[in-house]
């Protein structure tokens, strides 16, 4: 099975406190630690496990800049066969539809049976997978938390719904699936693995190489634009305890007891 995983590099919220810049209109980008979007990493692992069972190849693609090569190499160190960087100044400012349009052009240059995305990026809206499927006229399922390959170019998948329940579906290939976190246990990537792929060339594609009309991507084509970032005025917010640890522990104990929480 030929599998394409669409991945993205994002500020890692487990490593960063996201703050506004001094102008108060954007987040502070200096010193942000970036990593692969968590759900995308699960998608790559799932692709690797599928090809381990049924054979095939895994290609990881990202739309971005030079800095994004690092996530491609990380996923290649996990075992992905190919990494591809789609990059062009014309792509800057693309909305979800623009990114999906770029990915569609790339998909059509290949012959993929299955396309995976992470369900959602840190700053994103869980959009690109669904849009890509509609542009390609492929079937789609979101929030996928298990995949089984059936005979006859079909998959049996489950979707995460409310209350920990799962919806089961059969879906025809080729299709697009957005992968929910927790579907598997992504393998560890060590420095040795990263070094092993450090010099593997990563092919790049530009707008013209994908025969993309610049007017359908980038900022000019975006129907949806982020105007600025802000931190909303808080409601009451928590009463913050500013004592030392011992004082805070005592206070928490008092409060828990007062609220009937001590047996």
């Amino acid at each position, binding site marked *: 099975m030929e599998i394409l995983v669409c991945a993205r590099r994002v500020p890692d919220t487990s490593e960063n406190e996201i703050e506004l810049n001094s102008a108060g209109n954007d987040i502070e980008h200096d010193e942000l630690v970036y990593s692969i979007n968590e759900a995308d990493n699960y998608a790559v692992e799932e692709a690797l496990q599928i090809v381990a069972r049924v054979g095939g190849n895994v290609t990881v693609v990202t739309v971005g800049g030079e800095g994004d090569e690092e996530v491609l190499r990380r996923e290649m160190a996990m075992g992905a066969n190919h990494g591809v960087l789609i990059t062009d100044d014309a792509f800057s400012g693309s909305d979800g539809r623009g990114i999906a349009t770029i990915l569609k052009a790339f998909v059509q240059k290949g012959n993929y049976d299955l396309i995976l995305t992470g369900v959602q990026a*840190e700053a994103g809206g869980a959009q690109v997978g669904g849009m890509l499927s509609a542009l390609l006229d492929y079937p789609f399922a979101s929030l996928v938390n298990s995949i089984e390959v059936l005979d006859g170019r079909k998959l049996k998948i489950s979707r995460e719904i*409310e209350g920990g329940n799962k919806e089961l579906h*059969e879906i025809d290939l080729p299709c697009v699936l957005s992968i929910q*976190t927790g579907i598997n246990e992504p393998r560890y990537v060590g420095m040795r693995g990263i070094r092993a792929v450090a010099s593997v060339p990563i092919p790049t594609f530009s707008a013209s190489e994908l025969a993309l009309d610049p007017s359908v991507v980038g900022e000019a084509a975006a129907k949806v634009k982020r*105007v600025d970032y802000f*931190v*909303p005025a808080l409601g009451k917010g928590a009463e913050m305890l500013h004592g030392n*640890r011992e004082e805070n522990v005592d206070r928490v104990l008092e409060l828990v007891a007062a609220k009937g929480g*001590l047996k």
Partner: protein
Amino acid sequence: MARIFAYIVHKAGVPHDTATQLAAAAKKIDLASSPTAILTGWGPGLDAACDNVCASYSEIWKLSSEVLAYPNAELVRQALAKILPPGSILLIAHEHFGIDLAPGLSIKLNSAVVSDAVEIAGVAGSFLNIVRQEFGGQVSAHVRCDISSGAVVTVRPGAFKAPESAPVAGIVVDKSSEVGALTARRRYLGTIVAEAGDVDITKHSVLVSIGRGIQEKDNVAIAEELAEALGAAVSCSRPVVDAKWMEKSRQVGSSGKTVKPKVYLACGISGAFQHLAGIKGAPFLIAINKNPKAPIFQVADVGIVDDILEFLPELTTKVRELHSVAAK
């Protein structure tokens, strides 16, 4: 002004809680609007659900088809693409069905799409102004959406309060004949109900709930020791289940369990809205987190900026001391 529609999710004849919230969101787009509800389904359940939204919507479009008996977004998308007038604004709840439906629908309608709106600040010219949250709620963003060819907007459940306006006497319009044949290359097979776990966190009055801040599986014992001392149970947020440190049955949130404790100790939990959606009954919420910017501090009653791996063991020691004094 574009016509506004609200797609209503329903089950066994009962509309989802968000049915009235979408009506409230429509008023934020245009106060004078009279949004139209759309319900898809089959049989008596669909009819009952339509009747149940008549108080909130003046017009209800009913799309009845046997293949829509279970809401498969692949089929619903086709149906909506056939019946929505060009340029419409469609509101959908941002939950598992809306996430499945909305992005692809926006392509089929050639309209804009905005996901997970938490606030709507009206229309200026051909733009709809929307507020979203990014980075797990650490920051918000003003988003401008060009609605000149329509828009699909998914709305965060709970973000819009149902209006207290007088009920209307809505009329149900049967649009089923306009839908035609629907086929999908994705077929619904059934639903698997979550297994019960070893501990039922929905039955406990005190929960020690842990998040990513617990850092590794071996540290879960720190929370278990505190819970044991308190006579409480340990629950958790999604990243702890994703990492396989606890069972899914311990997860609080929209994709996990809904709990109603008296006291909720949120330990190393950032406070994503999907997690908060699982905490009901307004418990006394104490949050302990290393990150002073963690959104959990916006909703907690009491907050402490500290490392749970050091704070919790000290709290456990104090609780045990208290018990041993009481026992003497």
